[in-house]
């Protein structure tokens, strides 16, 4: 009952408010959705304390969905430690975002619609994490894609918002296609799409070989690689990340929700959920690690040059997701989910804090037009510091515990891919500290660069916005300390209770016994990054320009985000339209119609004008000739074939 309430209450409030949006005042709509989410969060916590101490979960069947031959899947809720961790994280963050939105969206024309979308978004994510089979997971998966499309394009009169919304949906769909292929592969070779059956069958067929496209694959490798390609889309890993930075076209609370809890974490969750399969394929694990490390590095470099406050945080999300993935890739599944959880708190905090800044600056997002406002909005300033420190992984903030475990696990794991990940992680830690410091320095310090009219209006946000910030800050400080023992420490076996793979003596255990130098390295690097940031943006503000001037190519490369969008536009988008027009005008009109009916028509009319001067009845003649000819040909064929 708790589980059902947790998952379906947001759907109920979304439907209620969404369908009757015009009969609800903004206030009623806000109260209904916020209390719905609040209740859902409460239920998820109750569920957490019911499931986790007991050490075992359950599956709650709801109703049949579809079955076709051997392929059968039903609606059900799978409640175990992994899903309740996700449930509590998602509902808590989402609840705070809901409350914050009441203040942030107060002046918008369609508050009920916005609140309904937020709740709908949460519902799909909850369906995703409680799925007991791959199809239901895919339902939630596509559902969050849809909701993100609706929310990113919420201000639908702006062309850029529409473009970003469509882009988010389509880039995600590319990943989804591979996810689907992964599901088919698992269905045909494992014989089921139910998690329980899949995990049971997996060890016995781990060495099977299957044919896919041009070659033979190990079945585990194929299934995991395909699923991971899907995860790359949803979790914005390098190559399929391009939608995420654009997603900030949506209102800021949406960015907080997308980046913290309800969408990008889905890929990480998928890999963790399928950990019994992934551990059986070294190739897939290597791929996860390398892609994660590459994304972490790529996104961090880009974040250092962006000037839009939300875009910096967006790339930072991308980068942190990279951390989560290579944690999974080296086998530290608990650490990956741990970072997912702590990151949800501090990233939501950073985004909502940024929203508070934007609110204060009269909707300005460009950091070049900010500065000198820390005394005017001290609470927001403090919140941004807490969020940033947690992001950098400074003790005792939440990020320290999760991120350090990941880095240590990468060191402790064996194999070239984990070495790559370890060194990338160290570099990225430095970059993270650098761009975080840069963000704070540019936004809050230095001389005010906004015009006077804006500066006069700088004000602290209303309490309905600051209260969620404070609560998130509490999470960003405490989530690490409180979770450490259960997620990755000695208590982890009792805590996870088999919902993710973990064995005594595995990489998570080894991570606790790495040399002191390795333990200190991230912290030292972070401090170095902070120092560099301070030098560049506080002490010597002329330096960034000079560095950029000295390396113009590198600077433009980073500023233009490694040119992914430009390449995709040139390779996929523009050709798609061009080919479409070509097929239409040339293929359909000139070739098929030209040689087919229209051509016949011309020939007929030509012949007609030769044989007779009478020009009427052309079409019937052309029909006659065509039919006569076809009939003759087939008659001849049939006769000769059977005589």
């Amino acid at each position, binding site marked *: 009952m708790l589980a059902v309430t947790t998952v379906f209450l947001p759907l109920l409030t979304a439907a209620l408010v969404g369908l009757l949006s*015009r009969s609800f005042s903004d206030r009623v709509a806000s109260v209904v959705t916020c209390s719905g989410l609040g209740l859902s969060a409460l239920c998820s916590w109750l569920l957490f304390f019911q499931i986790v101490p007991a050490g075992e979960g359950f599956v709650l069947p709801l*109703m*049949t*969905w*579809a*079955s*076709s*031959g051997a*392929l059968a899947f039903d*609606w059900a809720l799978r409640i175990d430690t992994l899903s309740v961790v996700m449930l509590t994280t998602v509902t808590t963050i989402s609840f705070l975002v809901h409350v914050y939105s009441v203040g942030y969206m107060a002046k918008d024309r369609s508050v009920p619609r916005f609140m309904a979308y937020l709740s709908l978004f949460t519902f799909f994510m909850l369906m995703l994490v409680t799925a007991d089979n791959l*199809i239901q997971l*895919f*339902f939630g998966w*596509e*559902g969050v894609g*849809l909701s993100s*499309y609706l929310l990113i*394009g919420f201000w*639908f*009169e702006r*062309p850029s918002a*529409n473009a970003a919304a*469509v882009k988010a949906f*389509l880039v995600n*769909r590319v990943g989804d*296609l591979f996810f*689907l*292929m992964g*599901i*088919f*592969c698992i*269905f*045909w070779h494992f014989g089921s799409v139910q998690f329980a059956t899949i995990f049971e069958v997996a060890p016995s067929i781990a060495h099977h070989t299957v*044919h*896919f*496209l041009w070659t033979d694959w190990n079945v585990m490798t194929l299934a995991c690689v395909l699923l991971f390609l899907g995860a790359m889309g949803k979790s914005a890993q390098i190559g399929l990340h391009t939608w995420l930075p654009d997603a900030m076209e949506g209102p800021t609370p949406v960015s907080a929700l997308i980046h913290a809890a309800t969408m990008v974490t889905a890929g990480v969750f998928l890999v963790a959920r399928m950990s019994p399969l992934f551990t059986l394929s070294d190739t897939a694990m290597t791929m996860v690690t390398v892609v994660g490390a590459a994304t972490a590095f790529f996104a961090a470099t880009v974040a250092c040059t962006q000037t839009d406050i939300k875009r910096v945080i967006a790339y930072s999300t991308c980068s942190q997701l990279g951390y989560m993935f290579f944690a999974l890739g080296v086998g530290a599944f608990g650490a990956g989910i741990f970072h997912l959880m702590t990151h949800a708190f501090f990233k939501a905090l950073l985004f909502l804090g940024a929203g508070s800044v934007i609110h204060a600056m009269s909707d300005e997002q460009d950091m070049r037009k900010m500065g000198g406002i820390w005394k005017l909005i001290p609470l927001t300033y403090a919140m941004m510091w807490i969020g940033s420190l947690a992001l950098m992984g400074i003790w005792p903030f939440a990020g320290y515990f999760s991120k350090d475990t990941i880095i240590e696990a990468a060191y402790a794991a064996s194999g070239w891919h984990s070495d790559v990940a370890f060194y990338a992680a160290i570099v990225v830690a430095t970059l993270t500290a650098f761009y975080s410091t840069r963000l704070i320095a540019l936004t809050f310090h230095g001389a005010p660069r906004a015009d006077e009219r804006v500066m006069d209006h700088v004000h602290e946000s209303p309490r309905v916005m600051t209260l969620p910030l404070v609560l998130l800050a509490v999470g960003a400080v405490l989530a690490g300390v409180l979770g450490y023992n259960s997620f990755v420490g000695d208590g982890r076996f009792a805590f996870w209770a088999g919902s993710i793979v973990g064995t005594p003596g595995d990489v998570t255990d080894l991570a606790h016994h790495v040399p002191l130098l390795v333990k200190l390295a991230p912290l030292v690097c972070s401090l170095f990054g902070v120092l560099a940031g301070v030098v560049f943006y506080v002490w010597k503000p002329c330096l960034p320009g000079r560095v950029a001037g000295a390396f113009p190519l590198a600077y433009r490369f980073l500023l233009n985000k490694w040119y992914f969008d430009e390449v995709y536009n040139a390779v996929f988008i523009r050709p*798609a*339209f061009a*080919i*479409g*027009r070509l*097929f*239409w005008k040339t*293929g*359909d009109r000139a070739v*098929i119609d030209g040689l*087919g*009916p229209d051509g016949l028509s011309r020939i007929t009319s030509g012949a007609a004008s030769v044989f007779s001067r009478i020009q009427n009845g052309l*079409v019937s003649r*052309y*029909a006659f000739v*065509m*039919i006569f000819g*076809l*009939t003759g040909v*087939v008659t001849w*064929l*049939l006769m000769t*074939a*059977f005589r």
Partner: protein
Amino acid sequence: MSAFPLLSIITFLPLVGVLGILLVRGDQEHLSRNVRNVALLTTTFTFLLSLALWFGFDPAHQGFQFEERVQWLPAYNIGYHMGVDGISVLFVLLSTLLSVICIVASWNTVKERAKEYMIAFLVLETMMVGMFCALDFVLFYIFFEGVLIPMFLIIGVWGGPRRVYAAFKFFLFTLAGSLLMLLALLAMYLSAGTMDIPTLMTHHFPAAMQTWLWLALFASFAVKVPMWPLHTWLPDAHVEAPTAGSVILAGVLLKMGAYGFLRFSLPMLPLASADFAPLVFGLSVVAVIYASLVALAQEDMKKLIAYSSVAHMGFVTAGIFSGTIQGIEGALVQSLSHGIVSGALFLGVGVVYDRLHTREIARYGGLSTTMPRYALVFMVFLLGSVGLPGTSGFVGEFLIMSGVFRVNTWVALLLGTGIILGAAYMLYLYWRVFMGKAVREDARLMPDLSAREIGMFVPLVAIVLWMGVAPDSFLDFMRVSVHDLVTNYQAALAAR
């Protein structure tokens, strides 16, 4: 044998309505009102009667149900034989449902020759239902061809400016296929000595003969589906046809091809079907990708949806010839889903066309502000069209792709690009029509959906979601028939 000739009554009831319409007298005003009422009453009653099939159909029964058999031409072994199985029964319901909706959709829009228009529609309904119920090849052929005539008139008389070109193109493409089917019919009669479809399904045609028969039937069905490159009549026909014509065209007529493959090609000509499966796969993949890309470039709403039909039907043909349970059940679900969804999308275009009298996408924009109900309804059908899980479109495409994956992973992957491109052209359409700002004043002043229009859309929305969330209630009908079909198909291949 059913004592009560339910199928015949459902089939011919619309003709009784035609008689009723012919009896209507009065001045122009009264005439068209009464004619509409008679037509609505007839189609509604037919639909209600067809619901008896939904409740009375025994999903566990093997073979045909509600059978009726009357001697017709005993000397030639040709009879009046009607019956439905799990493959055809839902198509009958689809036809009767969409017929009601089409009458409602034409309520205020058809002013010229309303009497003849309604007669054409009722005759069309008889032909469609009869086609899905016929169990004698000659009978089937009569209905199959009979569909052409009213449809030809609906496009040619009540269509747009280029209606004559479109009507003839439609007629010629389909007639060319039909004649080949007639030849196949004769050849099959000569070989098997009967026209009874259940008997033909158990008759073993020689392998060489199967090849030619298959090709002849293929020409006919492929035009109807339509498969690439025989699809070019469809966009023209859709663009010129009145809204209700497009609905029936997309909703039911395209399914006749898919139904033909399942009723004739696969069960009667299994060897040839297996041999030509790669050809069908190839054409299906080309249809999906080609039509999707062309849809992306369209500037006319109806053309865009017409091309999307070609793409969606590409999934259906691939699913059928995968010869797997999932592929075929998926093809059936996809056919039903596409019937509802694309029918509804054409109705949706009709809504704004009635208000602004243009189908040009660029003339619209920002409709979500001024027509929020319409935007919501259209969004639901858009989601059905792009196959979002939870809608009917997902179930069909998912099952098809999983069936095809079993047979050929390349085909599955390439079909899958259709789900990306499908989302692209549909969202791009939605963007241009519903998002942004209204380009012109008159587009901004359009009123939201009327009560009649809402009444028309609500059942369709309900079916799209119902079929997406609980598709088992539809799949249950098909299970036994599809299982038998696949078993016989595989057995025939194994015996080779």
